[in-house]
């Protein structure tokens, strides 16, 4: 299968490996070129329906009728999700969030997949899937608790069909495989109205044993599971060449199911490929691997500094492939939306940003007993006793900052 060569490139000109350089710690010119080549091309197999210039292109397998209403809806989704993400990033900079995990640049990959999911489906996110959360109907301000440090996750995974964020890289792939096995055991697979599961992970996660095991399990149990890998080219500071010698989507062949590389900045292609993959799973032909070829335009998190490991040329190149801009251009060119529409989406995103901002500023700190709550489903006298002792200790400070310590000594 022809594709871009992801194997490490030998240094040209016979420069000895490990030779001292004057720019220690900076990427070499060769590395920059290799990185640019790897990240700017998806290869011949890349599924694309809307070019970066906003032109519709046809694909023999995944083409579908797109009306302006669908496009406007996807555009609105992406604009609101991006606005939310930028607002959250700003809230971190202002000290309102302890950390933020930006999705900038991955709006199409997430909205395309998220809008393909149906209510009966289940999604298992990693921790950057704010766009999928949006599509699943999660209250976006519910995402703040994790990053402000008031909880570890507050939405209901069952009613939203959106599992809690999983921070340990790759763990959720096995959990999703188990859930999808359950869908099949429950007889919910086999027709067009069946159930399916989609699990989200990144290019870095593909190196984890759990992702490999999940693909083995998904395959041998014919699980209705879509592996949705957002290859955003960077696992913090490590490029995808550090994770794989072959393009990631080609790994599926080794497990015995289809793998597809889609333009992750093309929301139409992501939607079409996700719809197809989920339908395959519903009807019993799972699993499927989708590699959404995209780019993390911001840092890994707000604590990260991408200038230490990649050059701005790369970012500039990807800005030309912006997932939102190409939809806007297409809508304008085809007359799918007028200025009033764009103005309204803009106004809506401003209102939305104001609301989430207000919400964040007013989030109360959790009560101290939250530490001890829900460690177990069944009553836990031992944890309750620790809680009571701690609360009594704290109560000893009421009105006198030294009283608590004294009470402790008497105890």
């Amino acid at each position: 299968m022809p594709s871009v060569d992801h194997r490490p490139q030998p240094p040209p000109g016979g420069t000895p490996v490990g030779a001292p350089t004057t720019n220690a710690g900076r990427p070499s010119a060769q590395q920059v070129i290799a990185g640019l080549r790897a990240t700017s091309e998806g290869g011949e197999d890349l599924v694309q329906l809307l070019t970066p210039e906003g032109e519709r292109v046809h694909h023999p397998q995944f083409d579908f009728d797109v009306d302006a209403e669908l496009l406007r809806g996807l555009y609105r989704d992406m604009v609101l999700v991006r606005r939310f993400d930028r607002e959250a990033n700003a809230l971190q900079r202002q000290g309102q969030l302890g950390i933020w995990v930006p999705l900038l640049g991955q709006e199409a990959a997430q909205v395309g997949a998220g809008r393909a999911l149906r209510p009966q489906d289940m999604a298992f996110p990693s921790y950057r899937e704010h766009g999928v959360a949006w599509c699943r109907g999660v209250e976006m301000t519910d995402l703040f608790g994790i990053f402000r440090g008031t909880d570890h996750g507050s939405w209901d995974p069952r009613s939203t069909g959106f599992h809690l964020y999983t921070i340990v890289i790759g763990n959720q792939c096995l959990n999703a495989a188990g859930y999808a096995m359950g869908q099949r055991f429950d007889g919910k697979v086999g027709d067009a109205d069946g159930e399916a599961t989609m699990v989200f992970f990144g290019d870095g996660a593909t190196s984890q044993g759990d992702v490999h095991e999940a693909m083995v399990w998904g395959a041998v149990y014919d699980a209705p599971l879509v592996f949705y890998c957002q290859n955003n080219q960077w696992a913090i500071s490590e490029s995808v060449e550090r994770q794989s010698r072959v393009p990631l989507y080609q790994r599926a062949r080794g497990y015995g199911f289809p793998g597809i590389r889609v333009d992750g900045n093309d929301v139409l292609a992501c939607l079409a490929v996700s719809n197809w993959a989920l339908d395959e799973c519903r009807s019993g032909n799972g699993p499927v691997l989708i590699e959404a070829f995209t780019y993390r335009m911001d840092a890994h998190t707000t604590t990260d500094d991408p200038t230490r490991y990649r050059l701005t040329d790369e970012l500039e190149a990807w800005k030309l492939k912006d997932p939102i801009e190409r939809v806007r251009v297409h809508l304008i060119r085809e007359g799918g939306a007028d200025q009033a529409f764009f103005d309204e989406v803009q106004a809506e995103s401003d209102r939305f940003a104001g609301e989430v901002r207000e919400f964040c500023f007013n989030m109360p700190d959790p009560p101290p007993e939250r530490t001890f709550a829900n460690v177990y489903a069944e009553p836990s006298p031992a944890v309750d006793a620790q809680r009571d002792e701690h609360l009594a200790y704290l109560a000893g400070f009421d009105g006198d900052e030294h009283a608590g310590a004294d009470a402790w000594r008497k105890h």
Partner: protein
Amino acid sequence: MAAPTKTPVGTAPEVQQLTIGKSLNIGLRAAMEADPKVIILGEDVGKLGGVFRITDGLQKDFGEQRVLDTPLAESGIIGTAIGLAIRGYRPVCEIQFDGFVFPGFDQIVSQLAKLHYRSQGKVRMPVVVRIPFGGGIGAVEHHSESPESLFAHVAGLKVVSCSNPVDAYWMIQQAIACDDPVLFFEPKRLYHQKKAPVDTTATPDPLFASRVVRPGTAATLVAYGPSLGVCLDAATAADEDGTSLEVIDLRTLSPLDLEPVFESVRRTGHLVVVSEAPSEASLTSEIAARVQQECFYSLEAPVLRVTGFDTPYPPAKLEEGYLPDLDRILHAVDRSLAW
């Protein structure tokens, strides 16, 4: 799900002479009959019935969708069990040997133990992880370990160990009925040893309770799983020398139920804790710490421990010296009484 109090077992007689292995087998069968959401996952648990035959015959009777011969991947076993639990199943995982649990350790600690807490009670994890543990079977490396303290240290997990056929029968069903994840440690060298009468119509003790199995007055022995029988033998031997030892079977390792231990130590003033696991930073250290906190003025001697050594499990030709035996236990009792 309510814990079972009585379990019909087909036309089997109500009182049967059973080994621990057979008790576990019919206990698993009873749990599967009682709840169609109970499924078993593990390596070789289906056609083979498990390398110790604990799941013998279950796949034949319940089908391949309820007794799953899984791929050889422990993280996969635990990780998919978690997903199945989210889906509403009550998975029972078999880890083939104690030393093979570590590929699944990440899923156990990062997801299984924490999902209920993370979800603020919205997601329950009624998953049982069965682990044959302990030494004395002359095995190669990784087949004789006692890693239970590692799991008792993790909040969100419950850890139990059975020491006899009656407990094996009831505790496995109670663990499956529990809405929290339970690590279920089975004393593998006792699987197919002496039988005991198991009354399947009796009312079992609660799962998370320790039990005085032999009353005594001079000193207290505390143990669990495979060490319990050794302690009972030591108590019998001590009795012939005129020393009356009380023996307590912990049964539950997390949460610990130490009230019976405190009560006993307040009477005897002497405590020896016995376990095959290394002593450092272990359950036996935890018990010693809590007993000194609760029974400080009753202790006539420091809490002593008889355990495996702080080494990797040795080659089989050396395990006799590694495992706590009757002589080491009685030596510790003598030291305590002579303090």
